[in-house]
């Protein structure tokens, strides 16, 4: 529970359906001094979640996850940028904090499931495997951030609002008389509080600010960058290079602290590689496989053909070139509305 409308209504629906519900809030890490700006675990949010639990007549507990959150999620976030990739901490948090740390606590308390207010749906197929499907409300679909979960985790999960439209969820909150937090659905990372990721990185790893050369793909130096972490693939602004045509970030070379730029025509890539692949069904399907792929949370799904590569890597061949294939992000594979799994782009 977060005090927000989604998890609150999820809890209410489960209680109504006769489940023995326990409300848990995880206290995650925030920068010291910035507690009230954390998107989720502010004292206010906690008070609201507690009130919702009281209204639903379910017990409510707060579990401290600050240390584990910092040591796994925040550290890997910082490490990622140091290695020239753009990490997605939310996906990792679901995998390691919610569906591992919290899941274990849930089992310890005698629970069979963890339920969240995620917009996603679960369905059993003919073989008894759990399928992860897109939410009914596609504008809110969060199957992307759940794409690293496995059969065991999903078999012990419930997503009570995945089949509802957001507007219906809000109406239900009113119907249940739940005074939920009226927060906008923010996409920003919870632990960044009011900072942007650049300020956060500068504060925690001052060596992020490490100027180096900006070069063309032919090796010609065109300018200087402030630190590789501050740039993303496909970025055009902020390069400070005068050229006769717009230049875009094509890639980063962390070993030489070099930023590689080029014209728009160089941006499009039709092939990407993934590793650390998770097939939700628990086994790899027959490859090559033609499916739709999202290379970011908010990206449009694009058609691609998945090919096996060395070890358990995959190579994805897209029908059309994509401009912002970013190492560190997760590529998620869909067949119709079924999420097949995902891999880390490298």
């Amino acid at each position, binding site marked *: 529970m977060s005090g927000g409308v989604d998890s609150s209504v999820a809890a209410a629906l489960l209680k109504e359906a006769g489940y023995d519900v326990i409300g848990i809030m995880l206290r995650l890490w925030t920068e010291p001094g910035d507690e009230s700006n954390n998107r989720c675990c502010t004292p206010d949010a906690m008070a609201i979640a507690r009130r919702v639990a009281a209204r639903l007549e379910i017990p409510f*507990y707060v579990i401290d996850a600050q240390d584990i959150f910092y040591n796994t999620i925040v550290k890997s976030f910082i490490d990622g940028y140091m290695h020239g990739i753009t990490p997605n901490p939310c996906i990792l948090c679901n995998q390691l904090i919610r569906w591992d740390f919290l899941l274990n606590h849930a089992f*310890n*308390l005698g629970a069979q499931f963890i339920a969240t207010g995620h917009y996603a749906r679960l369905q059993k197929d003919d073989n008894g495997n759990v399928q992860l499907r897109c939410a009914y409300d596609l504008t809110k679909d969060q199957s992307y951030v759940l794409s690293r979960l496995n059969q065991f985790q999903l078999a012990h999960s419930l997503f009570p609002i995945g089949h509802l439209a957001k507007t219906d969820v809000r109406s239900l909150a009113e119907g249940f008389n739940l005074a939920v937090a009226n927060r906008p659905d923010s996409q920003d990372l919870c632990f960044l509080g009011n900072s942007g990721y650049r300020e956060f990185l500068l504060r925690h790893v001052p060596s992020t600010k490490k100027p180096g050369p900006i070069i063309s793909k032919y090796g010609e130096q065109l300018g200087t960058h402030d630190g590789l972490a501050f740039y993303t693939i496909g970025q055009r602004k902020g390069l400070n290079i005068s050229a006769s045509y717009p230049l875009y970030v094509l890639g980063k070379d962390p070993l030489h602290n070099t930023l590689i730029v080029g014209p728009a025509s160089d941006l499009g890539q039709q092939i990407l590689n993934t590793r650390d692949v998770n097939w939700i069904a628990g086994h790899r399907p027959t490859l090559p496989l033609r499916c739709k792929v999202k290379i970011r949370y908010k990206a449009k799904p694009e058609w691609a053909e998945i090919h096996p590569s060395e070890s358990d890597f995959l190579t994805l061949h897209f029908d059309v070139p994509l401009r912002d294939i970013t190492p560190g992000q997760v590529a998620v594979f869909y067949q119709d509305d079924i999420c097949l799994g995902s891999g880390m782009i490298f």
Partner: protein
Amino acid sequence: MRSMIPEDYIYFDYAATTPLDPRVLQVMLPFFSQNFGNPSSIHRYGQQAEAAVETARETCAKILNCQPGEIVFTSCGTESNNLALRGTALANRQSRNANHILVSSVEHHAITHTAEQLHRVFGFDVEFLPVNRFGQVDPQDVAARIRPDTAIVSIIYCNNEIGTINPISEIGEICRSANVPFHTDSVQASAYLSLNVQELKVDLLSIGAHKFYGPKGVGALFIRKNTPIIPIQTGGGQESGMRAGTYNVPYIAGMAEALHLVQSEREELSASLTLMRDRLIGQMLEEIPQVQLTGHPTQRLPNHVSFVFNQVDGNLLLMHLDRVGFACSSGSACKTGNPEPSDVLLALGLSPKWALGSLRVTLGKHTTPAHIDLLCDNLPSIVSKLRA
């Protein structure tokens, strides 16, 4: 709201609060309906209500062995502590330039935070007395640190976290010789120990009704005649100008009845609780590895058990105990999930790793040996589950 609490749920948190004695409720009820007057009114409604307040005052005074005029009614133990500390400190600064405050390092926050404010905002020099590993204050330490400019000494009678009983009359003797006002927070002690202020040699003593089967929302402060003190809540002239505010007649009447009942039954209750307490302590110390009893083994409240478990999260311990059906508490647990080792436990010399695993189990009137059995059956397995 239907209760979330199952029939067989066992309450082990009497130090936090106690259920209202049904006899106390009966005493309180008439004041909500027939006898509802404001004691400050001239008319007969007022006179009757005032009579009830004054009867309550006499009852409390008899139990404390003081004059009725030395009892001031407040809203709770915390308010009594605030009045005692701030009222006496400011008055003594005014009258004799006293600027030093001496408190123990194991006080309730009502004293420590008030003392901290007196330092931060009012510029007092606040000194915290060290305690031994049982959390006890050494009267000789008090004697050594008392100064000519000490405005007040405040030492808790029995600590709420670790149950240890302090040598109040010895400390009182020392403060008396030094002519320094001596206050004791007696909130936890009221149900079990003598409150005889002459024997205790105190000048100020705080109590709070809800710790002794009275209602929440009422307390009292004993102020020995001629103790310099200024009110901290000002307004109408109630309590001889010492504490303004309309009298909470039903609650004051309730508190007096609760105090009378608990003090008349205290020796029997203390005896039976001590037996159960010691059985619980003995069995858990034997069965659970890496555990310590905090506080003094014998000079402790008859109902009070407090442990620290190495490498255990106090919050999680309480959560699991709650799920299984026991209501306990912890010095280091926090509703917002941000565990901080308690100041009291750190003052005993415990490391944070131990201090974060604290558990307080306090018994009361309705505790039975069967309850103790059930806790003994369940606690060891919960602790080992959390250590896995």
